[in-house]
Every structure is written in structure tokens, then in C-alpha cells.
């Protein structure tokens, strides 16, 4: 056995499944509300009305980072299958973390925008 096998890929595997289960439920709800209710005729006021509810704000506050983690962790798995060099691996990992966190922060800013209204 290689003593140096990283534990982080096992966490990656586990977190991909946990976020995946959350996202499955979140996406079904997201899709149902936005495409199978009167909200399909979307405009700004429809969104701000929905964002008046604390429940929806909490929903999006989990949805955004969970979705981004799942997306970037998945992207990492694809990249990792090509067995890049160790240096490239850490550079790509760092880049994906920075991108993920930056877009999460931007997502929270958008949530605030919709909560405040026009």
C-alpha cells in the first residue's frame, strides 16, 4: 500500500454524493416552481416576491454553494482522469477553489439583490 495516498479524494467522492442528493431534491423543486407553476412567466417582481420568504432565501443559500461544489468537484474528477503532473494538479485545484468561492460570493450578492427588490 502506498502510504502517501491522499484522503482528500475520498472526501471528494463522499461530498460529491452528499451534495448530489441535496441537489437532486433542490433541482426537482427548482424546476417544478420555475417551469410548472405560473412562475414560468418570469420577471423581476416574481423573483423578489418569492425571495420575500425566509425559507426560499435559506434554500438558495444552500443551493448555490452545493451546486458550485458539485460542479467544480466534478470538473476536478474529469481533469484528474487525465493524470496531470503534481504541479499542474495543485494549480488546477487552487484555481477551481478560487473560482468556486468567488462565484459563491457573487451568488450570495445576487440573492441579496433579489431580496432587496428593485
Amino acid at each position: 500500500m502506498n502510504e502517501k495516498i491522499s484522503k482528500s479524494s475520498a472526501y471528494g467522492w463522499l461530498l460529491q454524493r452528499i451534495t448530489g442528493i441535496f441537489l437532486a431534491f433542490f433541482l426537482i423543486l427548482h424546476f417544478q416552481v420555475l417551469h410548472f407553476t405560473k412562475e414560468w412567466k418570469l420577471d423581476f417582481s416574481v423573483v423578489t416576491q418569492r425571495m420575500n420568504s425566509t425559507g426560499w432565501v435559506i434554500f438558495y443559500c444552500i443551493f448555490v454553494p452545493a451546486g458550485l461544489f458539485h460542479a467544480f468537484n466534478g470538473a476536478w474528477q474529469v481533469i484528474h482522469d487525465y493524470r496531470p503532473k503534481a504541479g499542474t494538479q495543485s494549480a488546477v485545484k487552487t484555481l477551481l477553489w478560487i473560482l468556486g468561492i468567488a462565484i459563491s460570493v457573487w451568488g450570495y450578492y445576487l440573492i441579496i439583490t433579489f431580496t432587496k427588490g428593485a
Partner: protein
Amino acid sequence: MFESKSGFFGKYAEEVRLNPNVGNWSWLLHRITGVILVIYLFMHFFALSSSTAGANKFNTWISTLQSPLLHVLEIGLAAVVAFHLLNGLRITVADFFFLTKPHKTIFWVAMIIFLIFMVITAVVFLGRAFSH
């Protein structure tokens, strides 16, 4: 047909060619739909970002996106999401509940749910596309 064992797609093609069963096909489709969804996520965030420029700007964007063509394309998006979601649940169920043996059966159950969902979605979305 797929001679190359390396290269961006060659690796995948070889994998599926050597072992062309449900597990490998679904793995390839899971990967392709996953990459499409990452790209879509960027577009989704970009479109929503118009809200920071005010309600009018956001509404202009949304009304552009509510075109007949986009309603038809949304059917494709629904298919990509539904496949990734259902196949992902199948993988998770197989991993967590030691159901790797009946994974092929679970796959076909997932595909039946996929087909029912797609028929409903296609009927509703096509109705919207042609009601413009």
C-alpha cells in the same frame, strides 16, 4: 474504429469500446452531461447577474430568453439535467446501499422515469413554444 488510446476523447472511446455495457455507456453520458451542466451553470449565473443592473435590465434579458427557440432548447436542458440527476441517484444508491449487482436494473428503472418526465416536459414546453 477507435484506434487511439490517448487524446481527449480517445481515452473515453477506448473505455467504452472495450467494455460496451450499460455501466460504461451511462458513465460516458454522465460525464458528457456533467460537463454541459458546468457550462450551463456559468450561463445561468451570467443571465441572473443582469439583476444587479436593475429590474428593467433583468426583465429585458428574461423576455429575450422566453422565445420559442429557447423553449425548445429548454427541453434539451431538461433532458441533460434529468439524465444526470437520475443516473447520479443510481450511482449513489449503488454505492451507499451495496446495490452494485442490480445496478443495470436500477439504470433501466431510472430510464423509465426519465422517459415519463421527458414526455411531460416536452408536451408542456412545446405547447409554450407554439403559443407565442
